[in-house]
């Protein structure tokens, strides 16, 4: 069973990447796209594939990996199959951090993810405080409600930060908040990949502890986990992963929700395999969604976050019904 999971995931990500190379406003055959990737064939096709599509695919892969791992870790730790960074308001907090960073002129490729991380860590703390105040951290509904409240607060904070900005900046900021891979550059992608890689290594190192946390706080403590400390660490790492994706591609929702469920449905059982699988499946999903964003309304481009939400909301509803 295990090898089959990995086979399906790797095939999925390769297919998505190939589609990402071949599809777009300019249709290329897979063979032409492949040739262009190596610099052969029509110069326009080479330019499109190598300077436009390839960085997008790379950014999509790392953003998806970050969102998938963040969602998988949060779901297991919170024992809640509906948990994910976007719905928990973590991404919103990251957006506040990133926008604040921009207004303070901290725009270097390596600073932005950190600014977003501070915002995300603050908002995850806030969500858990709200949920604890309601006396039910484990209750999925209370937790999601807390996430929605914090997300709304984050939106308001961004509007305040943008209050004095010129119309075009506001328009750009709103576009960015809808999520997009359109501004992918190699420099930015390298930083996002570095942070996602670091976060991924940390979260995989904690996989066994997360597995125990997913049993509940008392069983985890019984089996040797320092529950409070481990939980705090998981939230911080999950926030880092989500924040980095926000800095790289804006707000892309529901990926963290769908991807772990897909990986589990394919047969992943342990947290470690779910997280590792979610990294691959997340990349595939984001790249595929980005292809749709480019193709559906061509020559215009849809926001990536709109596409993932269009897929994710029905998915969310089905899961919610299954839980009820």
């Amino acid at each position, binding site marked *: 069973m295990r090898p089959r999971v990995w086979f399906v995931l790797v095939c999925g990500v390769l297919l998505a990447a190939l589609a990402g190379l071949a599809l*777009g*406003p*300019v249709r290329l055959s897979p063979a032409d796209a492949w040739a262009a990737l190596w610099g052969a064939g029509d*110069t*326009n096709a080479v*330019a*499109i594939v*190598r*300077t*436009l*599509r390839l*960085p997008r695919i790379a950014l999509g892969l790392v953003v998806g990996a970050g969102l998938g791992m963040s969602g998988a870790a949060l779901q297991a730790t919170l024992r809640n199959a509906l948990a994910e960074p976007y719905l928990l308001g973590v991404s919103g907090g990251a957006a506040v951090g990133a926008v604040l960073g921009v207004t303070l002129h901290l725009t270097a490729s390596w600073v932005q993810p950190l600014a977003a991380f501070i915002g995300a860590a603050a908002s995850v703390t806030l969500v858990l405080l709200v949920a604890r105040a309601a006396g039910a951290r484990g209750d999925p509904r209370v937790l999601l409600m807390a996430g929605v409240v914090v997300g709304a607060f984050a939106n308001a904070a961004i509007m305040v930060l943008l209050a004095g900005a010129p*119309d*075009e900046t506001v*328009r*750009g900021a709103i*576009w*960015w908040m809808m999520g*997009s891979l*359109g*501004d*992918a*550059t*190699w*420099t930015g992608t390298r930083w996002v990949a570095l942070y996602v890689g670091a976060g991924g290594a940390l979260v995989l190192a904690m996989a066994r502890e997360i597995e125990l946390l997913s049993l509940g706080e008392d069983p985890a403590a019984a089996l040797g986990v320092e529950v409070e400390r481990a939980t705090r660490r998981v939230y911080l790492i999950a926030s880092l992963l989500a924040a980095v994706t926000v800095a790289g591609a804006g707000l892309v929702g529901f990926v963290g929700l769908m991807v772990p469920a897909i990986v589990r449905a394919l047969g992943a059982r342990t947290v470690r395999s779910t997280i590792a699988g979610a990294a691959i499946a997340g990349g595939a999903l984001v790249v595929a969604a980005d292809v749709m964003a*480019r193709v559906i309304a*061509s*020559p*215009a*481009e849809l926001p990536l976050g709109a596409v993932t939400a269009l897929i994710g909301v029905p998915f969310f509803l089905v899961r919610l019904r299954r839980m009820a």
Partner: protein
Amino acid sequence: MRKEPVLFFSPIRLRRSVACLTCALVASACDRTRTPRATALELDDFADTVRTDTRALRIVSLSPVTTEILFALGAGNRVVGRTHWDLYPDAARAVTDVGNGMQPNVEAVLGLRPDLVVLYASNANRGAAKQLHTAGIATLAVRMDHIADFRRTVILLARAIGDTPAGNRLADSVERSVGAVRARPRPAVPPTVFWFIWESPLYTIGRNSFMSELVEVAGARNIFADLDAVSPQVTREEIVKRNPDFILTGPENAPKLRASPAWQAVPAVRAGRILVVDTTLVGRPGVRLGEAARHLRALVLHDTLR
């Protein structure tokens, strides 16, 4: 004081205008005892009724174009308020700045005690127009997407200040100078241009923008002239596919284009065929439309007139 009871009909709005006219005539018939003067009505681009039988003396102009037209009509001394972006002509800079022209600060406008507020007819401004009506202030909402709209706007403003002949003179002169550029010899294969407005999301201009029309007047072709939207959103890939000969953009965007790795996918950017446009001149369909067309023709075809 010269009064001009004039009715202006836009063909599209003819029916509604007739209806309003009928109502107005009935109303004025009833009101005759109170209002001895005949009432004159005008429909602006919000399809709001505007009285033009009074000469506006304190005008707040909330768009750069209307401000420059008012100055060109010789009514600059009656302009008491402008937006932050109305910097032409130089004399306009002395006028009180009320901030934004879109979703303007109505309180700041009212504070200038205007008798006419000229708005850009965008949906974002409908609320402001309503508030001003409630406050008893006349508004005139105008919209200029096409070069052909210029005459209509100028005439509306000319009537509002009570000087129609000046309006006709101004419209004639601007149309003449645009026509002079249009009459220049056209290349057999017109060069194609991509007009870069804004990155992220990536915007350009479509068929229904006066800027696209200016490109045609100058003897070139906008690669997105097939799109209906005034400012359509497009993708870089589509630009590569349509492969323009030149990129037109403002001075602040040109260095960004040259430095961006992603833009190197566009052959014209790679080859450095980026033409820096004077956006303060070309970016608005105002009294300098002819100058703008000449500027574009000089940039794209190296053909300097006069």
